[in-house]
């Protein structure tokens, strides 16, 4: 390790961001990397722990201390090599991963954690800049073929790994663009689409075949896929969004978050949407239901669209500002985090249950809610009882209601039903420890298997499934 006292000398410094006013004007990325010298100092804060909790806390087991050290020493190329050993798409995780590593950073016990994610991003961007990221098609092909269904992070990671191992991989994507949630779900201001394109082009040059607008089970039968390919991987995500089951749900102006975000992403790449079908927040009172990351993306989108007001309601209490006793370091921290979208303007309110929606002329106008009160957490179920606070009913103006309340697993209709594969108790696709489903030669990875989760988990799933597939094929 380079500077053993770095953590004593330097403070944490994050990437700078455009001012809120500025960034609300556009859909582009608004962060600015640190100058190299400053970044070295940030890397020097890493203590190169003998037991690196960051590395353990990262689902990908990123070799954080290794590349921090190399960055400190200015050995960027090696840092890049070390980085891609465990992570297929650092330029993506470097932008949108919520960085569990930083929550388990040992420095975080006593000071601010190391800016691991920023360093990661700097390494990979430097690598692109220097031309180190080049297509490296496998030298030898194994002659085996694999179909990967779904081009989200899990599917892409899986395809990448299998292709590197020499198998011939075809990725099927139902929409028009590669990337799944990356390209259509996540707003451009978080992840510009050129970033994905840049990566996909490399994957293409390395020999992966991409088929877009191709819905397995609809456009092509799964039986055909099973026949044509030596193995297939289901990586279709957990797209079955949770709905709001209250009166007034049918009113115009109530949308699922994914529909909302997807449309804006399409508009950003120039897709024309009929004005009638457009979902816009412009001059509207917007409420986002759900306090998660998707909700935050909707807030950022609404503000950029020119919303009159933006509110975010969450059914659960506001998380504490610091870790609760039962949520110690180095676990994922359930604490209140102000994201960049929140900075851009939102009223957040917690413990709110939506009772009904009111409207005029089939158009949404009001949200009727009530406040909730929670009891003690049951030590066994970890759930707390909840009850409505008497006399707390309220109504609030609302022209656009975005539902960002999470997902309930993969769509069952179509692919899953056709294959007749087993599901787990939560409705996700069940696999063995090698990621194979109950159908021989059919594997599953990502949210489809795991349920809604983080992008790093998706990549991890893709890589692990690839290992399973590879073993299956080589055997």
């Amino acid at each position, binding site marked *: 390790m380079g500077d053993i006292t770095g953590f004593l000398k330097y403070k944490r410094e994050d990437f700078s961001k455009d001012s809120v006013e500025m960034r609300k004007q556009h859909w582009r990325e608004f962060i600015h990397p640190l100058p190299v010298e400053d970044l070295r100092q940030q890397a020097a804060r890493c203590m190169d722990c*003998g*037991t690196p909790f960051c590395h353990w806390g990262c689902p990908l087991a990123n070799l954080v201390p290794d590349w921090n050290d190399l960055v400190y020493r200015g050995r960027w190329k090696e840092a890049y090599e070390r980085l891609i050993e465990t992570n297929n798409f650092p330029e993506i995780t470097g932008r949108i991963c919520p960085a569990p590593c930083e929550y388990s950073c040992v420095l975080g016990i006593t000071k601010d954690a190391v800016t691991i994610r920023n360093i990661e991003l700097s390494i990979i961007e430097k690598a692109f800049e220097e031309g180190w990221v080049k297509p490296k098609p496998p030298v030898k092909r194994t002659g085996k073929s694999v179909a990967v269904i779904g081009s989200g992070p899990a599917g892409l990671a899986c395809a990448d790994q299998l292709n590197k191992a020499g198998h011939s991989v075809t990725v099927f994507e139902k929409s028009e663009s590669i990337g799944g949630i990356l390209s259509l779900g996540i707003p451009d201001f978080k992840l510009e689409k050129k970033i994905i394109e840049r990566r996909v082009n490399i994957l293409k040059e390395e020999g992966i075949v991409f088929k877009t607008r191709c819905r397995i089970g609809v456009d092509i039968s799964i039986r055909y896929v099973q026949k044509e390919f030596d193995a297939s991987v289901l990586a279709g995500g957990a797209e079955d969004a949770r709905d709001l089951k209250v009166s007034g749900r049918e009113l115009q102006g109530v949308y699922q978050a994914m529909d909302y975000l997807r449309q804006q992403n399409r508009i950003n790449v120039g897709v024309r949407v009929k004005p009638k079908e457009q979902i816009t927040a412009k001059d509207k009172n917007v409420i986002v239901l759900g306090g998660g990351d998707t909700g935050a993306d909707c807030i950022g989108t609404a503000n950029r669209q020119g919303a009159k007001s933006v509110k975010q309601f969450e059914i659960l209490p506001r998380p504490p500002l610091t870790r609760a006793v039962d949520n110690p*370091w180095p676990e994922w921290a359930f604490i209140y985090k102000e994201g960049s979208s929140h900075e851009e303007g939102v009223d957040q309110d917690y413990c709110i249950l939506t009772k009904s929606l009111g409207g005029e002329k089939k158009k949404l106008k009001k949200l009727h809610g009530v406040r909730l009160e929670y009891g003690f957490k049951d030590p066994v179920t970890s759930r707390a009882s909840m009850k409505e606070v008497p006399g707390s009913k309220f109504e609030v103006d609302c022209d656009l209601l975005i539902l960002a309340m999470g997902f309930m697993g993969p769509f069952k209709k179509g692919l899953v039903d056709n294959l007749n594969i087993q599901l787990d108790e939560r409705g996700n696709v069940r696999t063995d420890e090698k990621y194979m489903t109950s159908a021989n030669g059919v594997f599953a990875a990502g949210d489809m298997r795991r349920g809604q989760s983080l992008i790093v988990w998706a990549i991890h799933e893709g890589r692990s499934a690839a290992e399973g597939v590879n073993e299956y094929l080589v055997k």
Partner: protein
Amino acid sequence: MKKFNFPLNQGLYDSAFEHDSCGVGFLVNIDGRKSHDIIVRSIKVLENLLHRGATGGDAKTGDGAGILIQIPDDFFQKECQALKITLPEQGSYGVAMMFLPQANDLRNICQEITEEIAAQEGLKFLGWRAVPVESSTLGEKAREEQPFIVQCFVSCENLGPEAFERKLYVLRKEIEHKVQERLSLGDQFYIPSFSHQTIIYKGLMMATQVSAFYRDLEDPLLASALAVVHQRYSTNTFPSWKLAQPFRYLAHNGEINTLRGNLNEMQSREKLLSSDLFGEDIKKILPIIDPNGSDSACLDNALELLANGGRDLPHAMMMMIPQAWGVKYPVGPDLRKFFEYHAGLMEPWDGPAAVAFSNGHVVGALSDRNGLRPCRYTITKDGFMVLASETGVLDIDPKNVAEKGSLRPGEIILVDLEKKRVLKDTEIKTFYSRRQPYRRWVQENKIELHGFFNDVVSLPVDKSTLALRQRIFGYTREDLKLILAPMAVKGSEPIGSMGCDTPLAVLSEKPQLLYSYFKQLFAQITNPAIDPIREELVMSLMTFMGKFGNILTEVPQNARLIKLMHPILSNEDLERVSSLKLKDFWTTTLQMGFLRQGNGEDLGEALDKLRRVAATAVRNGCSLLILSDRNLPDGLIPISTLLVVSAIHQHLINEGLRSQVGLVVETAEAREVHHVALLLGYGATAINPYLAFETVVDMAQRKMLEKGVSTTKALENYIHALCKGLLKIMSKMGISTLRSYRGAQVFEAVGLSRDIVEKYFTGTVSSIEGIGLDEVAKEANLRYEQALEDSRVDSDALANGGQYAFRRDGERHLWTPEAIYKLQTATRNNDTKLYKEYAQLINDQTKKQSTLRGLFKFKKTKAISIEEVEPVSSIVKRFVTSAMSFGSISREAHETLAIAMNRMNARSNSGEGGEDPARYKPLPNGDSKCSEVKQVASGRFGVTAEYLVNAKELQIKIAQGAKPGEGGQLPGHKVNEEIARVRYSTPGVTLISPPPHHDIYSIEDIKQLIFDLKNVNPKARVSVKLVSEAGVGTIAAGVAKAHADMVLISGHDGGTGASPLSSIKYAGAPWELGLAETQQTLVLNNLRSRIRIQADSQMKTGRDVVIASLLGAEEFGFATAPLVVCGCVMMRNCHMNTCSVGIATQDPQLRKNFSGKPEYLVNFFSMIAEEVREYMAQLGVKTMDELVGRSDLLEVNEAIDFWKAKGLDFSRILTQVVQKENSDVRCREAQDHGIEKVLDKKLIELAREALEKKEPVFIEMPIFNTNLTTGAMLSGEIARRYGQEGLPEDTIVCHFQGAAGQSFGAFLSKGIKFILEGESNDYLGKGLCGGKIVVKPYKKSTYNPGENAICGNVLLYGATSGEAYIHGCVGERFAIRNSGVYVVVEGVGDHGCEYMTEGRVVILGETGVNFAAGMSGGIAYIYDPDNKLDGRCNLDMVDLELVRDVKDIVELKNMIEKHFSYTQSQKAKDILDNWDQALPSFVKVFPMEYRRVLGKMMKEDEAIEREEKVFK
């Protein structure tokens, strides 16, 4: 041959682990006059050395004693006459002293054989004489084993005296062979001596019993001009008559550390032996060495060969135990070449030694190169001389004393009865070094290689294959980053911390190199480790290569060898050697490969073939075998270099060829110091680690090394680091020279099957079996295939490793992030459920194994209700926190541990850094910060009488798990005000802990230290901390016999402090092994009942506690886990002072981060205890006492089916040894420390007025060498009452007359003044803390004190304050680790003022070599009129300058004036009388660091003064 007297090897006990040590000496009438008085006086000497011996379980059976004398002709003539045996005149008959079986029939056969062979050899048998003995005087065990003792007389007519003696030697050997061949009597048959010059009376007895048992010795006609005496102290008490000393030519107080190598070398020489003197008889004396003898017996066997082969006795002794003669040692050219010549013939028998030797014509003594055994002598004016381990062993009128001296390191002394005078070292060595033109022989015959060992040059790196080759040989990124890079940058081994929590090699799923299955052995107690840095001058890596000569000849050709400066060959050097073209020197290269995909059989065949080819090559005259894994042909994969080297080495030994050839390894595999040490330790001559070289060059070229080190510099550094590390590993075992380390096999195997070990690593201990050739082959294949697999991707990146730092795809660790945070959260919230999850992570090793205990399970027994089990509150009392010093951890952490343990009535351990006296007083809330266990370690920091009396337990740390056998260093920048204060040193001055305790070089020494400590604080129990290794059980037995109350067995994997990585990983064994061995050995010895056992290292759960208990432990230590509870997250940065959680740091900012609380620890230990209770209920055991030693409740978990673990065999660990009657499996009684009889009892009585009312008292009494530790108990009384403050100066004045025993004035408190008229033994003023000591010669004596020895070795060790005035010369290591005493002395031996950190030393005479080594503080003033000091001083840390500063001059003069006023020293007077002339002859020895710190402090003082002025 079966050993009859030792218990059969059972469980982990192996009789090969026996050690012994003792008192030794000789007496002689220099003029050769025979007298009976010599015998009487030698018995007296033996009796006075009694305290150096030991007694066993029955308290009456001594470990052995004996006496060697000249043949008492008058006596035998008389006796034989009575028996009707006609003896010819003196010198024409030989006498055998024989131990025969008691059974008549067997005895008769022995006697028949003797007579028969005598006749065959042309000798005339004269008769038998039964030796009259008094069995009733013996102890019970001794009586049980008592042989029938007879003397046999033979004569010879036509042989000269030497030839006659040689014939008797041959005869004895033949008789021995024949008897064992016919009767297999083992130890029941033994011939103590068979000579026409000397005879030996010895046996299994205490010194006091010798003359009572052998009635001959009381006969006034029994006369001799000389006697060699010996009193044995063995670690075990198994009766053995034959191991009593003296042996035929020598008596040895010491330990041969390199025995295995010496034996192998001797064996491989046997076939070459030839001698005109022996002629055909040479065959009859093979094997030269009785393989069942002790190390001393083997030494004697080798000596008798040389002595009978034509070399003079002193000459032979100097060959076997040479003094240091390396480049740094001041010796003349002739002598240096004498030693170099003989080094090519014989490797040193290395280890601490005081040897007395005699053949009846000469008698002499020799000390080892380190002077590690005391040897004091007195010569009288009337021609008598006595030499012994102590002075004062005989009452000699001071008026009659002509000279008093001591043997310096490596010195020899001789009395020649024909010349009738004493020959001293210089005369003897000059004579022998010029006996032959050795210097010319060496210069003319050595093989010269042009440019050999010149500057290292860079080498080309084959980058295209580098990564592949690195992978094939298992290189990881960690190897590069953590091992090779630091070596290449700093030239030294990398440091790490927090122990080792990875699986043993045999339990790891990652393919392991064979090296990882071996653990380094290290010295504990029976012999000291050496300091390879500060005492480097006694060490040597120089070695030879080529064909070694016949040791029985003295010819120039014996010097025809290649000399290597060290064993690491650069590529060019290898090239130079291998391309050497000489008529008598040629090279063969063998490739170390076997069939890819091959199994154990293929591997075995490959090895057999290599062995055959090697032997054939050597037979054909090849003088250098190069074993190479470079460029193996396709289809072959590498065989472990270690396996090949050892296999070939062993084979060549068996074939008698080894000494004819050098074994050079050209290896890609070896890269770490441990690898290199193993290769050499198993027989390699030199090593070329070419892939490591290439890797280093590659790293340098890729700018991966810090500070931009150049490629050549990196290579040099790397080689230097290997050599330095090698010296350290050798020094750990107390071995000084590579020549004797080679082949010494000082390792044990953990996880290798008997088959492999017996065939390829013959003689190595492997207690639990393990993998065989099949698995070795499989691991090699796995690694190879993985390497190919990894190389398919286009990346040079190597595997992570994960050995030292956790990596998910690397080696497993037990302290995973999950385990750490679960434990922390559980203890913080007192969450039992979470604790169980934590415990499950550690305990359940059914799927992934890490530890030996992980492979055990509890037997199904009848469970009981948990309510019936002993409560938590009583179980926790058995828990301690293991030693961690204040200094290594922060005050906050240290005090939190103490408070928590005190709350539970458990104990915390101070560690070795002293303790702030403020902590001795309880806090207002009832808490106490006082560490109830106070540690006494080699640095003796802050060890004062006050420190010692404020403890319930005093722990002597012999070794620590993380780095057994090594010293430590607290760099000056870490020594802040507070640390300096409690350690009694100066802030900013580096503190060095020496590798050994300088008052423990032997087992009798630890007995002394235990006695010292017990005297200061009789209420405290004394414990001894050992580290698990093969043989630790016998050490523990020795410790039990030394009266320790508890012995702590630490595992190899523990350790919280900083240590070299190779020591953390490769030194020491798991505690399961050491603990089980200790338990078994103590029970076998009937010693268990009087000593408790504690176990520690990586104890994490209640299950660990229960298993330790079942294997024999009564108490349990924890260190890492409590630190984790206090917030440690195993960053493993302890050595960097940057611990971010405020534990292992002194940085005030970081210390604020400390988040531990005593409550958490109380929770932790309570949960552990609760878990223990659950297991106890399950096992149906109510109390912990009942658990102890119940290894029958454990069994191996059969569910574990890991392929490598299958060969493991735990039966030896789980054995319950056969118990003798009365022997116990746990401690039930207290030791008898014998402190009731000490002189101090009287002193305390006489000083009552002073103690109670501070009134001055004056005491006068005689003193003897048997009065040990005088003053310590009195000092303890003062410290208990008045603390460090003590009494006003000179309140208690004691005047003693005589020869004081060891540890005179130890821990003397302030207010006491001891005046000793006479002399003293070793350890005077040990731990002096305020008292005053004056030593002066007897008033009546006439010799010059300035030239004679008055005190022994290691004076004022660890003294913290006080004064001493010594009117005379003293021995080695004077004022070692002095941290505050002001002392004047008139001459000192080698290594004076070593490791001194504070205080003033004035020396009015000569110093030995290596003065001021490791001296970081204080000042020494040396009177050096002859300008010798410059050459003798170790200038690494000190400057020499004249005394110019006025303050210094005043200080110096003042001290000399005091010296004169106390002692009336003539020398002091002369100097004072001529002060102006004398002053320029004084040299000030001023440590550089001390100067800097003083300067800094002065500036600070000035600054304060200035500030004060401003304020005024």
